[in-house]
Structures are given as C-alpha cells and as structure tokens.
C-alpha cells in the first residue's frame, strides 16, 4: 500500500518535471510574429556591431533579437544560409575566402556570388578590420622587425595563432606560402588569450585584428604586409535577401550604418567593451547616440550579484535544456536497454552506436545539428539527448544482465510471462543501476548544456562564452558557478529520488 503511494508520488514528480520543461520550451519558441534575428561571431567587435543593428531595427519599429556569439565563420554563415539568422556583421575578405571559397573580393563579385544563395550585402560600414601579425615591442626592437618579410630570417620565433586563422586559406597557410616562412607548426589558441600569451613571453608572434583595442594596451608592433597578402577586410552586413520584403523598414537601418563607423571609432568601442568591461549594448547605444567617445566608467557589479542575475536570466533555460533532453533520453534509453537485453545481437549494435556518439566532441555534435535543425534550443536538445542516451542504455542493459541467473530462472519457474517478469522482477532488480545511469546522464547534461550557448541555445553557457571572448574570468565564473551548483543539486536530488524508485529490500542489501 505504502509502496503504491511512493510509486505514485515518484510518477507525479516526474510528470511535473517534464511538463515544466516542455512549458519552458514552448514559451521560448512561442513568440510570434518572428523577430529578425541578428547573429554575431565570438569576438567583441562582432557583438557590438550586432547590438547596433538590433537597436537601430527596434528604433525603426522592427522587432529584433541578438543571437550572441554563435561561433566562427563557418557556423554563422551556415546559420544565415539556412535562415536561422537574418543578418550578421562580416568582413569582405573573410567572405571571399572562408565562406565563398572563390577568391572574388570586390563587392560586386561578392554580391553576384551571394545572390543565388538568397543573401545580400550592405554597403561598407566605413572601417576596415584586416588580419595582421604582431610582435611585442621588445622583440621588434631587438630583432629589428617592421615587416612580415623580416620574419623569414627568424625561424626560431614561436607562433601562437587564433584557431580560425590557422585553418583559413587566406590565413596562415597562404601567408607562409607567400612570404616563404619556415616556422615550426604554430600553436592554436583562443584569440582573446593570444595577448596574454605574448605578454607572458610564451609566444613571440600572434595574429591580430587591426581594430583590436589590445594592440595598444599590450604595446604590440603590427608588422607591415609588404607583399600585400591580406585582401581588403571591409566591414559589411550580410543579410537574407527576403528580409527587405519581410521588414521593409530594415532598409533604413542599412542606410544609417553606411560609412558610419571609422576605424578609430571602432577601436575605441572595442576598448570600452574589452578593457573597461562596458556591456556591448551600452557601447552600441552610446555610439548611436553620438557619444561614442565618452568613456563612461563601467558599472561593475559584484560576482555574487552578477551570478544571481545570471541564475535569474539563464537558469530557467538551462534547466529546461537539461530536463527535456534527460526526459527524452530516459523515454528512449530505457526501452533501448531492454531491447539490448532481450535481443543480444541488437544489443551489441545499439551499445556500439551509442558509444560512438559519446566519442564525438560535444561542440562538433552541436554543430552537426545546425544544418538539420537550425540554431537555438532545438538542435541543442537533440545533441544533449544523444549524449544522455549511452549511460542510460548501458546501465539498463548492465542492470538487467547482471541479475543473478537463479533469480531470473525463479521468475520463469513460478510461471510468470516475459512481460510480468520484466515488470515485477527484472526492472525492479535493475532499478538501482538504471537510476545510476540516469544520474550520470543528468550531471553530464548540466555540463554539456553550457556548450549549447555556442549555437545560440542560451543557458549558463552564455556568460561563459561571452567571458571567454572577453578573457574576463568574472563573467566566466558567473556562468560556471551556477552550472556547478546545479550539477551538485542534481546529484543530491537523485539521493532523494532513489528512495522512491529503488525498492526498500534492495536498499537494505547495501
């Protein structure tokens, strides 16, 4: 009797959790009509430009939202191609090489290449942000370095480059070929960290953006591109051609930004956000109000207040990602585990596939779903669901297989049908192992969900990714601390949950 009540309570709790998660999920996607979505890459300048577009659009009465820091060029370009975002800031040189792969670099050629994909280009925004190589002033003085050609004589220098620059044809490989450089393979590093590396003397040469605020801050010498390797990198906006039809007022946003920002203004804005910690939205707002140069003191809030604010803003979304993906993993994983147990040959296959999925790096798995499901919480849920599957399938299978043979046979011998055995004997006996698998999945989901922010799914990963691109430890902690606390709470919740799910006779056996 009491057992039945316990089961009922457990069931009700589970249903409530799932309903809560689904409610979050639907409320997040129910906003109608769709606002235009402005994407950005994971660096300060991209965030600021995207904020400007959002604010200008709102002034024109167009609802807009910022899909922050989606990742590198490949992810963002794919997102705009499949319509997950409508507009994002880009550079002509990047488009020419990384996204188009056809080498055309003037505006007319780029427009012609983009048109068949349903994409269009704005007029240049007014400044250029090209790649360049930089060295510390000490090294430059000692070795007499002023041009990239000067590096040929110094193959002993240590190179640290941003991940994207290492791989791009118009990046390191092309540069090496053009100048005939002979260096050891470069170290790939997050762009925001490259400055730290050179300041600590762990690297001699880094790649920089010419509008980067930190060039002055770290007293770096930018080497001249004397063989004219880097193509022009004019800042522009890439937008979906159908945007003009959906939101005609958006044309006025493009007008307002045409030639509006010069390189000095951009560098100052980068410095405010990057060095003074002023929020991107504020930097963009001040510039649009004409007070871009006024260096207002940044309003730093304490770590505790910041963390609480993060919990309030991102907690529900993070919880939704974990609860919904976990519920899906359980609903699919437990039956798969049972199938693996009852049909051993299928079982080997199921466990093998689930194991392979587990070895895919999480960011890669998230990105894999972008062409299928776009960006946002849906592909994140799909990826988290797949990640959560293996521990549940494996533990269900293991729990069932490790039931002592004489107990399994006792179930047969007293005349129970296969379904009755599963329901009344085998699943209860395996319940502790199955629950342990679910707990593992839940804790993994809390951690993996932080990576979901990189594909625009939100959650505690959002401050983490912002903090990474700013190299701001406080901001990173504001996301990392609540994620860690949530993982601990989940662990604790399962201790309580075990009392409801695992039969008393098995708990006494401990």
């Amino acid at each position: 009797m009491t057992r039945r009540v316990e089961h009922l309570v457990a069931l009700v709790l589970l249903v409530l959790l799932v309903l809560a998660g689904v409610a979050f999920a639907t409320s997040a996607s129910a906003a109608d009509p769709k606002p235009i979505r402005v994407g950005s890459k994971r660096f300060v300048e991209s965030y600021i430009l995207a904020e400007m577009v959002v604010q200008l659009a709102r002034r024109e009465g167009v609802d807009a939202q910022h899909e922050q820091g989606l990742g590198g060029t490949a992810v963002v370009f794919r997102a705009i191609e499949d319509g997950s975002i409508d507009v994002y800031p880009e550079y002509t040189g990047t488009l020419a090489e990384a996204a188009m792969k056809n080498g055309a670099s003037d505006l007319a050629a780029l427009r012609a290449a983009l048109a068949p994909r349903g994409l269009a280009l704005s007029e240049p925004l007014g400044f250029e942000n090209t790649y360049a190589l930089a060295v510390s002033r000490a090294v430059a003085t000692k070795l007499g370095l002023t041009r990239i050609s000067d590096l040929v004589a110094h193959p002993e220098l240590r190179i640290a480059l941003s991940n994207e620059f290492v791989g791009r044809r118009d990046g390191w490989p092309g540069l090496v070929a053009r100048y005939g450089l002979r260096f050891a393979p470069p170290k790939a590093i997050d762009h925001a960290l490259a400055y730290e590396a050179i300041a600590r003397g762990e690297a001699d040469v880094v790649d920089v953006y010419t509008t980067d605020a930190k060039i002055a801050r770290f007293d770096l010498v930018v080497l001249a591109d004397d063989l004219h390797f880097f193509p022009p990198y004019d800042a522009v906006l890439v937008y979906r051609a159908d945007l003009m039809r959906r939101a005609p007022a958006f044309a006025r946003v493009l007008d307002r930004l045409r030639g509006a920002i010069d390189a000095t203004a951009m560098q100052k804005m980068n410095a405010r956000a990057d060095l003074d910690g002023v929020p991107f939205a504020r930097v963009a707002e001040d510039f649009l109000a004409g007070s871009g140069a006024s260096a207002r003191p940044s309003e730093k809030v304490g770590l505790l207040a910041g963390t609480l604010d993060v919990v309030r803003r991102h907690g529900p979304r993070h919880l939704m990602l974990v609860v919904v993906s976990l519920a899906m993993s359980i609903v699919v994983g437990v039956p798969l585990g049972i199938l693996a147990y009852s049909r051993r040959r299928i079982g080997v296959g199921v466990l093998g596939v689930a194991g392979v999925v587990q070895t895919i790096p999480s960011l890669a798995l998230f990105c894999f779903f972008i062409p299928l499901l776009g960006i946002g919480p849906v592909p994140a849920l799909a990826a988290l669901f797949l990640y959560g599957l293996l521990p549940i399938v494996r533990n269900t299978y293991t729990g069932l297989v490790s039931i002592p043979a004489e107990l399994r046979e006792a179930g047969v011998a007293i005349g129970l049908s296969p379904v009755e055995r599963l329901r009344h004997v085998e699943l209860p006996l395996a319940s502790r192992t199955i629950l342990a698998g679910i707990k593992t999945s839940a804790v993994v989901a809390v951690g993996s969900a932080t990576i979901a922010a990189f594909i625009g799914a939100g959650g505690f990963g959002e401050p983490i990714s912002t903090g990474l691109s700013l190299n701001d430890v406080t901001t990173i902690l504001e996301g990392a601390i609540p994620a860690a606390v949530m993982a601990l709470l989940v662990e604790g919740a399962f201790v309580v949950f075990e009392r409801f799910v695992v039969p008393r006779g098995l708990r006494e056996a401990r």
Partner: protein
Amino acid sequence: MTALALERVTKAFGSRTVIRETTLEVAAGERLALIGPSGCGKSTLLRMVLGLVVPDSGTVRVGETPVTEETARAVRRRVGYVIQDGGLFPHLTAGENVTLVARLSQDSERERMRTRVRELAELVRLPEGLLSRHPLSLSGGERQRVGLMRALMLDPDVLLLDEPLGALDPIVRARLQEDLRDAFRKLGKSVLLVTHDMAEAAYLADSIVVMRDGAFLQRGTMKELASSPAHPFVAEFVGAQRTLAESLQ
C-alpha cells in the same frame, strides 16, 4: 494415477551426455527422492518437468498435460518449485514473494488470499510477523519456509524441491526436515525431491532413486537399497552415509 512422468528422455549439452534414456513416474501422493553425486543429472531431470530444460528426445507429462513450449507456463503454475535458499526476490517482502503469482492471476481475491497466506504460514511454522520483512533480513531457515509457502500458494498438484535444505546448518536443517515431513503428510501431495543426503531422502520420501552419470542405478525403499543393492555404487553410496552411532565408535 500418475502425477508426473518422464518417458525415455535424453539430454546432452554439446558433446556431454547429461541424461541417458530415462523413464520415471511419480504416482499421485507419492514422495520420491532423486539421489546421487553432484553432476549426475538429478537436477536436470527436475528442471525438465518445469520446461526449464527441454529434452532432446522423449516426452514429459504433468498429470495428463505434455510439457511443451506452449503449455510450459500453465504447467509451472500447477507445480510448486523450491530451490536452495528459497530463490526469493530481494526487492519484495516475504509476503509479496508468496503472493506474487496469485496477485497477477485474474481470480485473485484479497480476503481469500490473506486467509491462504495465514494457513500456509501455520503449515510451514513461520511467524506471521516475518512476512512483512525483506528476504535479506530473514535467516536461511526462514527464507526456506517462505520459499515453500510461495511454492504452495496456488495449491499445486506436484511439489518439486531441488536441494531445499542444502545451505542450512545442521540444527535448522533437522528442524526443517521435521516440519517438511509433517507438511507433506498433511497435504498428501506428490513430491519429487532432489538431494545428496541419504538420511534426508530416507526421512522425507517413500522411495529413493539412485542416479549416476545420467542414468538410474536402482529404485526402492531405503531398506531395499541397503539390504540388496543392485550395483556396487549403490552399496558404496548407502555405506558412505555414516550413522551417528557409527561415528561415535
């Protein structure tokens, strides 16, 4: 009338022959013990009755029903089965173990079930209070009594016991032997008991079958086996079971 019959059954696991062609009948109300050294095939015969082992040739019947894949489940509900240490499910209480199958049958009526459990507890001399405990907090002897209750719950025609007392210490074992014998007498059911203890076989069963290497050597009462063994091994096996008087000399 026969309660159960194995007719010319054989069984091999791979290249190893476990049961040579064997025929065995247990009459209604008869108590028969299968005895022999470990690995002689006695448990395999018992498991054939339940359809847990399918013979390579020959037939198995319980009452009039041939045991096949289709009938096995119905047969199992008419046959009580007790194994060493009871084979109880640790996640259920003793009482839940006893009533599990009855609760899953359509005609389970709460009040009748409760009465039945009370009767059985009295029959196997188990204090009723222990029924709310889980198996792991019961003693070995108590678990065995619960196992016997579970086997008897649906009032089976036949009772199969596979080394039921093998894991118990001598005092508990002796007491349970007495209680088992009383219960058997009261119920008058057909019993097939597998054991390797000659004294236990003689105490609990009417007749004894001595087995070795998958074949029967002799069937008879204890007295017959002792006075006129049909095979040197029978004489040896009976002789190997020393009496207490002998040990004291």
